[in-house]
């Protein structure tokens, strides 16, 4: 799966969690810009995991702070 496809699928998945309608770019942070709390993170991660049929462990989540890093990580996991 190419990066653009991963990106567009995650954009659809993030919509219900992006309550304030923040414009999402590569540098958009989950904790800061999107104000995701830990419960939102869990539900959002579960949605991505189910859609792509992957596991994003907590260890991997700790390395992901912004949207661009998430797309990269998911792309890598789908190739694995």
């Amino acid at each position: 799966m190419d990066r653009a496809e991963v990106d567009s699928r995650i954009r659809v998945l993030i919509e219900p969690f992006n309550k304030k309608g923040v414009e999402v770019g590569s540098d958009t942070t989950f904790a800061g810009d999107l104000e995701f709390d830990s419960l939102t993170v869990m539900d959002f991660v579960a949605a991505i995991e189910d859609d792509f049929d992957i596991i994003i462990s907590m260890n991997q989540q700790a390395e992901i702070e912004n949207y661009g890093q998430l797309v990269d990580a998911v792309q890598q996991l789908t190739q694995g």
Partner: protein
Amino acid sequence: MSEGISQADRPQPPAEAVAEPRDLFSKFDPVIQTRETLLAGGVEDPFNLVMEKVLSPTRAICNGRDTILLGTYNYMGMTFDPDVIQAGKDALDNFGSGTTGSRVLNGTYQGHKECEAALREFYAMDHAMVFSTGYQANLGIISTIAGKGDYIVLDIDSHASIWDGCALGNAEVVPFKHNDIEAMDKRLGRIPEGAGKLVVLEGVYSMLGDVAPLKEMVAVAKKHGAMVLVDEAHSMGFIGEHGRGVAEEQGVIDDVDFIIGTFSKSVGTVGGFCVSNHPKFEIMRLVCRPYVFTASLPPSVVATAATSIRKLMHGGEKRAHLWENSQRLHGGLRELGFTLGTEEPQSAIVAVIMPDLERGAAMWEALLKEGLYVNLARPPATPAGMTLLRCSLCAEHSAAEVETILGMFERAGKAVGIV
């Protein structure tokens, strides 16, 4: 989830400092502010209660008031059992006040062996290992058995000691939604072929007092070839035919690889343990760092624990009374109009859901002034940002005391405007 202090069980990212100048303590500023705001409302500090005198498992003088205790996890009321106390006194006289050493050096006394023998008998299992606290039991076992390249799949509402065991080890950590069998199944199915798998569950979750569907979950874990660890801290001595916990009650105890428990609830002292039938289990004594690098429990503590565990094997009548108390409190609070954590009573924990932190704190204080102590649990320690008044019943609460407690809840609830 845990005794609901003012922090989450799952480790959270550090908060932004609010005040200047910055130093290492600046990261605690948001916690300091929340606490000051709560206390500025004139509420007695819920996290600074002092018991000046303890009269029985169910009564104490708290902040100068004669108080009924309804938040101690002292489920079976063993803390003042005469046989238990005598065993502790004898051990103090004969073995001294402490061991001053690790279990693997000079810290294994006859009492530690007798305590482990009592646990093996209680659970009908081959191996038992006693730790200095329940926290260390989870910390030690989880961090040691799941190593680099292995996967830990655990419930998102797990106790802090489970999360910290994950953090101390090097395994990949994969949480799933609370009690969600399908979410757990899916995550186990995605783990790469050949990786070691450990599923961590709790029998009773202490925040809402709800029970896990262990029958289904253990079967799913076994289908995926995972080992299963169940923390039965809140069910020991009370749930299951022999008081072995929810896994026994649901008929799956033989498929559970490790049971973790504590002496600081039904057993009535302090300490933790793991029991297992794994043929290589004894090697844990040499490789589990939180076991090796800690002084062992004092002789009086293991003596009281062993005596209490043996008495709990014959605690059928007390168990029945504790169950009656839990059902009456749950039903009575519902009749009064309170919102509870579970539809039906599932354990000896009854969680009363408060509309918000302010009214929760006001209600907690109103109850304390009535002469009733319960646990105030608040976000982020609670699921879904709830504020809870957590009640844990004791087999030594009399039926009349439970009625008194309901009267206190009614008056306090009306005064605060919750019912």
